[in-house]
């Protein structure tokens, strides 16, 4: 359970580092990195903060993860979850923040 940060995309804004409830993400010069990857709770707060989709979430192999990378794109009320599969497919799920869960 953890995140991967694309250092080429990272703009060093520090938003992921600020929001992480475990303060696990630090800035190394001008780029973010996860200092304590095993301490990630999987809350995905950081991927929702990142303005350039540089932070991606994945499931650890020890809990059955297959290597898909997840990020979110926010447009108005819509939060779009993008799951890039390990085999190249992409699944997108759009959630309207103004709509409640049905269950």
């Amino acid at each position: 359970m953890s995140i991967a940060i694309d250092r080429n995309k990272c703009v060093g804004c520090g938003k992921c580092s600020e929001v992480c409830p475990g303060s696990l993400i630090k800035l190394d010069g001008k780029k973010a990195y996860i200092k304590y990857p095993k301490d990630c709770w999987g809350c995905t707060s950081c991927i929702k903060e990142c303005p350039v989709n540089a932070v991606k979430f994945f499931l650890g192999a020890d809990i059955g993860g297959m290597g898909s990378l997840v990020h979110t794109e926010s447009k108005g009320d819509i939060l779009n979850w993008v799951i890039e599969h390990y085999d190249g497919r992409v699944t997108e799920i759009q959630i309207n923040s103004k709509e409640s869960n049905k269950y």
Partner: protein
Amino acid sequence: MKSEKLITDILIIGGGTAGCYAGLTIAKNSPGTKVIICEKANIKRSGCLASGVNALNAYITEGHTPQDYVDYARKDADEIVRGDLLLTMSERLNSVTERLEKLGLVILKDENGKYVTRGNRNLKINGENIKPILAKAVENLPNVRIMNHVNITDFSVEDNRIKGAYGFGTESGIFYTIQAKAVIIATGGASGLYKPNNAGFSRHKMWYSPFNTGAGYAMGIRAGAEMTTLEMRFIALRCKDTISPTGTLAQGVGAKQINSLGEVYENKYGLTTSQRVHGTVTENIEGRGPCYLRTEGITPEQDESLLKAYLNMSPSQTIKWIESGKNPSQQNVEIEGTEPYIVGGHTASGYWVDTKRATTINGLFASGDVAGGCPQKYVTGALAEGEISALSAIDYIKSEKTPDISNAEISEHLSETEKYFSDTSSLFTCEQLEEAMQTVMDSYAGGIKTNYRFNEKQLDLADEKISKLEKLAGNLHADDCHELMFIYELKERLTVCHSLIAHLKARKETRWHSFAENLDYPEKDNINFRCYINSRLENGSLKIIKRELVKENQIYEHSN
């Protein structure tokens, strides 16, 4: 470390659900009162609501009364609750829900504008952004100073009266002394005491926030506060691997618990929270595992809604479904019990408080997961207790001056804190000692390894080993303030472990399977243990206090 002293009227420790709502309540009811909220991360996503929540599980639905909620919680905990606390909480559940909706939370309504309920006590919401909504409301308050990335480590108490607290900035490196007329403790419960389900790379993929390390309990225990019912541990029944919630499947789409033979087993063991865990454990022991929630055969619409619902509260489960190429309608969801936690929002563990949420330390109020006697709080109950403790603190400070914390006391605490930067004597790292603690608790104090069961001999061994680890923890070394926080978190957990072991030992019966299953006393004993087990640190040793149950329609008040 640079040392700074701050003075405020009310200090709130912990900016989670209860702490944020306490801040909102003070600002609304006493706008001139100065408040500091200390939060070790950032209130935007800290605490239990980081990734969201998809239902409000504590609401008094039409046709029901607050007393119905009290009765439900009392039955679930087999009587070991405080009815007076449950009632005062339940009476506020609906008003805090309305306030949350006004702040921006989306709650499902029918065509007549009424909330749509899930079962008898639940509302359906979109709670992905529930914590940012709450945090934003607090950030806008003029007299509330939010101090993010400040880790509070100890209370300052003199003659059983709170004077404030000590802590340090995890990023700034500043040592803080905060003097206050009253303190509200709202740091959440304790995770990480036991070895988790997945002890490797995904060790923090747990039910509860891994960053809730029992700080509030530990500070209270050290300061001599009376604690109650720590032995009622909480073990959650979760989706295997992702440790995601099961309630949405069980209550949302009516998925039953089945074993590997396809038999519905939940009715065999009972439907209380602990019985659902116990049933699953027993089915596995007797060779009928693994156990599942039966989702096969649900509709494609239900599939789609579940994928979204889990993204709004526990995204890992949705990713797991997508990676597997099968939706829940095509595969049952395997379930397992988590490692045990101490969490007063679900069970009755925590500070021994009165209906004002006053602890046994004057001027210290407790709310949310640290406050005992009042289980089944969930989000709205934590908000309600945040409100009650805030109103009590406002009332308390009317006749109080700010107590003074002397320079001598400050320098003593500062040097205790700084010691960890200069001590290089330890062979061990904080992580190694944390793993050692979790192994001890797992093996000897009823962890996953022993199917949550223990006997007295094992508890004695656990206590001995935890004491040794406490000694080792005293010599740890920190290179920076984040590592310093890790050391304090470990010490907090060890303190809670000690008290927990003493409580488990004191309840010589088995009232709740799995939660406190003592193999030396496998039966319930209503003659001797229909009571609260409380404890207090006196002259360096933990004293167990048995207290009579507060009866129906009675109210307990502190009498010290």
